[in-house]
């Protein structure tokens, strides 16, 4: 079965130069925020992107959204690169949901204006036509009609996030890029927003690129999950496969780090030393080798490529899957 | 750090040169001094002779380059009005101005920071409102106005203090107070808003939780962390101080540099005016450079940008 690729990122690299002083020797330093990521998002699927701070997931999302140009690589939408000709169509069909509900809505616009704005930009609908589109969207996000005349400050964080979601739904998008959309919300509100995302995926056939640092949130929502570390993808698999058969040492450490409430959540204890490194002076070879409990000499020398371990489960590690290695096939 | 200092000094030098050149053009635009340097009834010929002697008949560009080279050689020129070496003139009166300006500025800084701190700690209280209203009056009231009011109250009515001259310490009181009020008011407001902002930060609570007394927390963490905006404000007030010195010296007949400058401007005494402005530009720039460098000591995060 060949699945329809909606969006493809091909070897995306994004480097930011660090300003050099005239008397500093050595080569120019760069922040390698994204260092070679290739991903495909299929139509109707939710792809999760997990990583800690500094891993480059936000930068990557902005490259995908065409908000910043990549240093290398390209983004293909429906098989074609995004250029001046099809950028408006792209913006209509690919939308972004942001993390902070308190700063992503213009406080001087009322809710109707906020939600209608994309329609004003992309279509030439009359006021009645716009309202006809907005009303069912309002129902979908479960807010009453009175909401339209109010201003953002009259709403709670969870409600504002819903308004932000309504705003992206009016243009009937195909893909939503969500950058930590529930991280700023309380747990009980988080649940209702996650349920909303799932509902929209079912009802509208929406695809997601869902970025988060929270594995349990991503597990609930996504079909496939990619794990990022210092600008690169270290593991990518279908959800069930990733949790049943976690291969990369970093992913296993991530899972182990989540404090467990229930017994079903308990994992083998793996504690990493040190902190997530800075993208300015990344370690040589495999960026994770400094903190990896299984690191060997080759890990410091060569960058491990992403290998398919079977069934689309990709891992970037020199040793995974080989017989007798610590990270092979155990929970 | 070195690179930063060098760059900053060069910028300062450029600034001083630019101001000097600007003043050079401005004073010459105001008119020919030969008109009133000679007694009435002087002939056209006599005026021509004088102009030639003063090099005022030469093209502007030549006057400029000559003036500049003179300056760089250390020759400050001769005052048209006093007929003496300009640098000498300033040196004589510098003492008087410094005797006035330094205590005034110190007073403004110390009392300004103190009042601002009190207002911030007791914000929204009566004392806060009184100090801040007082501050508004302080910097909106022109200093000559204030000076004359003070003279009226303390010299004419109460007969407590003298109104002019530089004979004793009592002469210093009124001019010093008049000069200090405006910068004091601004420094107080700066301190209050900077401190209020800092006292709301989490590290203040962190310090309190160590068992440090409230007074120590306010000084060691509150004031210390609000020094950068306050020091910036103080630097800006230096300009006000100098302008104020000119006015105050005139009002109180204080024989300082300010009075000299005002007289020279009135009399179209180009060399004196130029040299005076040059000194002002130089000292203000110097103070601001020192302040910029001090940021590195006040906030370690800024040291990173120096590297």
């Amino acid at each position: 079965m060949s699945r329809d690729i909606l969006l493809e990122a091909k070897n995306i690299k994004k480097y930011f130069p660090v300003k050099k002083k005239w008397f500093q020797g050595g080569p120019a330093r760069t922040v390698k925020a994204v260092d070679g990521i290739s991903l495909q998002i299929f139509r109707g699927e939710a792809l999760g992107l997990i990583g800690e701070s500094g891993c480059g997931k936000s930068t990557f999302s902005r490259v995908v959204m065409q908000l910043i140009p990549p240093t290398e690589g390209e983004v293909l939408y429906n098989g074609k690169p995004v250029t001046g000709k099809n950028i408006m169509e792209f913006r209509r069909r690919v939308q972004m949901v942001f993390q902070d509900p308190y700063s992503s809505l213009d406080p001087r616009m009322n809710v109707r204006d906020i939600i209608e704005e994309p329609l004003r930009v992309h279509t030439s609908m009359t006021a009645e036509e716009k309202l006809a589109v907005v009303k069912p969207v309002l129902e979908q996000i479960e807010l009453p009609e009175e909401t339209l005349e109010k201003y953002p400050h009259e709403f709670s964080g969870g409600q504002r996030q819903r308004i932000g979601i309504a705003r992206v739904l009016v243009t009937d998008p195909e893909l939503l890029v969500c950058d930590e959309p529930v991280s700023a919300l309380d747990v009980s509100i988080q649940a209702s927003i996650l349920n909303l995302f799932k509902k929209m995926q079912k009802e509208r056939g929406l695809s997601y690129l869902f970025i988060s640092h929270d594995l349990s949130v991503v597990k609930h929502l996504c079909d496939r999950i990619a794990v990022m570390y210092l600008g690169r993808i270290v593991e990518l698999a279908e959800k069930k496969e990733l949790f049943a058969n976690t291969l990369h040492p970093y992913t296993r450490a991530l899972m182990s780090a989540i404090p467990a409430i229930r017994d079903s959540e308990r994992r083998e204890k793996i504690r990493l030393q040190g902190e997530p490194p800075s993208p300015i002076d990344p370690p040589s070879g495999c960026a994770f080798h400094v903190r990896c409990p299984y690191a060997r000499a080759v890990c410091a020398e060569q960058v491990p490529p992403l290998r398919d371990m079977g069934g689309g489960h990709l891992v970037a590690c020199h040793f995974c899957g080989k017989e007798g290695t610590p990270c092979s096939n155990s929970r | 750090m070195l690179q930063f200092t060098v760059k900053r000094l060069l910028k300062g030098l450029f600034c001083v040169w630019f101001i000097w050149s600007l003043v050079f053009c401005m004073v010459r635009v105001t008119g020919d001094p030969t008109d009133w340097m000679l007694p009435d009834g002087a002939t056209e010929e006599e005026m021509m002779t004088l102009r030639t002697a003063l090099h005022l008949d030469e093209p502007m560009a030549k006057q400029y380059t000559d003036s500049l080279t003179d300056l760089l050689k250390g020759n400050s020129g001769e005052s048209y009005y006093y007929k003496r070496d300009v640098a000498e003139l300033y040196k004589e009166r510098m003492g008087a101005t410094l005797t006035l300006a330094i205590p005034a500025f110190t007073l403004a800084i110390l009392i300004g920071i103190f009042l601002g701190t009190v207002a911030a700690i007791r914000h929204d209280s009566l004392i806060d409102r009184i100090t801040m209203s007082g501050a508004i009056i302080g910097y909106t009231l022109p200093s000559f106005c204030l000076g004359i009011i003070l003279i009226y109250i303390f010299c004419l009515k109460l007969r407590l203090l003298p109104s002019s001259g530089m004979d004793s310490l009592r002469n210093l009181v009124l001019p010093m107070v008049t000069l200090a009020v405006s910068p004091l008011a601004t420094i107080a407001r700066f301190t209050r808003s900077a401190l209020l902002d800092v006292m709301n930060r989490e590290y203040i609570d962190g310090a309190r939780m160590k068992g440090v007394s409230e007074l120590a927390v306010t000084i060691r963490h509150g004031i210390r962390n609000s020094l950068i905006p306050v020091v910036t404000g103080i630097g800006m007030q230096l300009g006000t101080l100098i302008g104020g010195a000119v006015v105050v010296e005139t009002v109180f007949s204080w024989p300082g540099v300010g009075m000299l400058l005002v007289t020279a401007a009135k009399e179209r005494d180009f060399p004196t005016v130029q040299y005076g402005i040059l000194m002002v530009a130089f000292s203000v720039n110097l103070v601001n450079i020192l302040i910029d460098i001090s940021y590195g000591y006040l906030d370690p995060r800024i040291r990173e940008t120096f590297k």
Partner: protein
Amino acid sequence: MENLLEVKHLTTYYYTRMRTVPAVDDVSFTLQKGRVLGIVGESGCGKSTVARSLVGLIDSSYTKIVRGEVLLRGKDLTKATPAELCEVRGKQISMIFQDPFVSLSPVYTVGDQIFEVMKAHNKNLRYKDAVPAILDLMRKVEIPSPEQRINDYPYQMSGGMQQRIMIAIALACNPDILIADEPTTALDVTVQAQVLDLLRDLQDEYQMSVILISHNLGVIASLCDHIMIMYGGVVVEEGSTEEIFRNPLHPYTKGLLASIPSIGEDKEELYSIRGSVPVFGVPVTRCRFADRCDYPQECCFRQEPELTGPDGGRKIRCFRVKEGKMV
């Protein structure tokens, strides 16, 4: 076991222009030596205000403890003078905060800041003499190469390191009680795990009593033996960690547990508590959770239920739960 800390009917109000908010309303608990108490709740439930009220770290221009006692070894901290509070803070009760980057002063070195708490309780101490103890502390909180890092400024350290420095400051004078207010919320997941491990080890070694405040039930479960769940300023359920997770009774607790996505289970839909946290004014004349509850009865809207249950045991504030069962 003797009670180290006894909090009785602590009530703290916020006075705003529009209304008076009972941020903490009639909260009571005890803390024994070596025990770890968790206070759980979402934003606005009052858990941070409880912690701050204990040590008087409240802004008196709009906050006031209107009722209650905080007895530390029998002495009431709510009636303590500022000087007495300074004696207690850092020495008997220490606190670590959520975001270490803003909780450390940016202009002093970490060595200086650790020294500050030592000096506050030992006036004659000199920095030179304190350095060995400071380095020891830094080693204890697992900071690598402390000799080099002692002169670092906070901005030169990562979030995890900064939090360790905060812990070092908190432990410097061997306090009896440590209050940790969302200590890992601002940290990355892998760093969070390290810091939690560290706290656990230190608590074990020093037999310190800890009050851990968090909205993250997992964090609470990993450290605490006794939990208080707060909502709208009151305690709605209390009990041992094991009991509460195994058998939550209060509708809010049940809802909270059901709404958390888990990596161990696969749920089609997460339970979501309807509505949002209302703002209360005084006096409160109904169950604070009634509007969002799935099991409301008429009485819930007419009167506020009492917190019932044995001292130090399982307590619940709900009309519909009697003798450990929903009726």
